[in-house]
């Protein structure tokens, strides 16, 4: 089992991450990857010029490691990679990258989905959108919480 988490202070290349992840495979039949990109529009349609993700490095990385560890405990994946940006992110840039590998596809799909739902609500970041009219702090939405609750319900 291989699990890696990284906090990226500068822009990263998801394609290069996937190439490296795939090169390290050891006979797995499935790889799933997801990349989240910064949007140029807020939920209310307002312009977002910069998305700022503040972190507290040691605690943020620990939160990401805990989430990845639970994904490995829960799904039959053999390896995972989670890369998260911190700092000032421009629209279109990648914010988060998740890759999972497993013998068969279902576990890799589900683990990637689970990782993203957990990261979106529980990873230790404070996020604000900066636009022409000032800035706004962002908290998880009801939709994010509903996504997360799918996994709790499945476990019961």
């Amino acid at each position: 089992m291989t699990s890696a988490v990284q906090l990226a202070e500068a822009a990263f290349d998801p394609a290069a991450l996937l190439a490296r992840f795939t090169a390290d495979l050891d006979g797995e039949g499935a790889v799933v990857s997801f990349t989240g990109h910064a949007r140029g529009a807020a939920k209310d349609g307002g312009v977002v010029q910069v998305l700022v993700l503040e972190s507290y490095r040691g605690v943020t990385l620990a939160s990401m490691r805990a989430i990845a560890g639970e994904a490995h405990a829960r799904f039959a994946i053999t390896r995972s990679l989670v890369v998260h940006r911190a700092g000032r992110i421009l629209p279109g840039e990648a914010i988060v990258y998740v890759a999972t590998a497993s013998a068969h596809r279902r576990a890799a799909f589900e683990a990637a989905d689970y990782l993203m739902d957990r990261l979106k609500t529980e990873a230790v970041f404070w996020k604000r959108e900066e636009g022409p009219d000032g800035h706004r702090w962002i908290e998880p939405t009801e939709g994010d919480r509903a996504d997360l609750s799918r996994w709790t319900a499945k476990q019961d």
Partner: protein
Amino acid sequence: MTILRIELCGRLAEACGCEVEQAVPTDGLPVHALFAALADAHPRLGEVLARGRVRACVNEEIVPGSTVVTAGDAVALFPPVSGG
């Protein structure tokens, strides 16, 4: 007394900057008492602390209110996280 520097994360920094200093007894102060002292010294921060959703992080661990902080501890206050 000794001076403890406390980092304010996320939107807490809007109340009084990224860092505040607080005098604490040499043998330390529980986090809940630290919150009370900070609220007295910084009313705007106090308003946020009163909502009860701020957690203390001491030496990279999120701790309960009973944890005693002393000189040399790395103390930060975390508002609710945004997630990634």
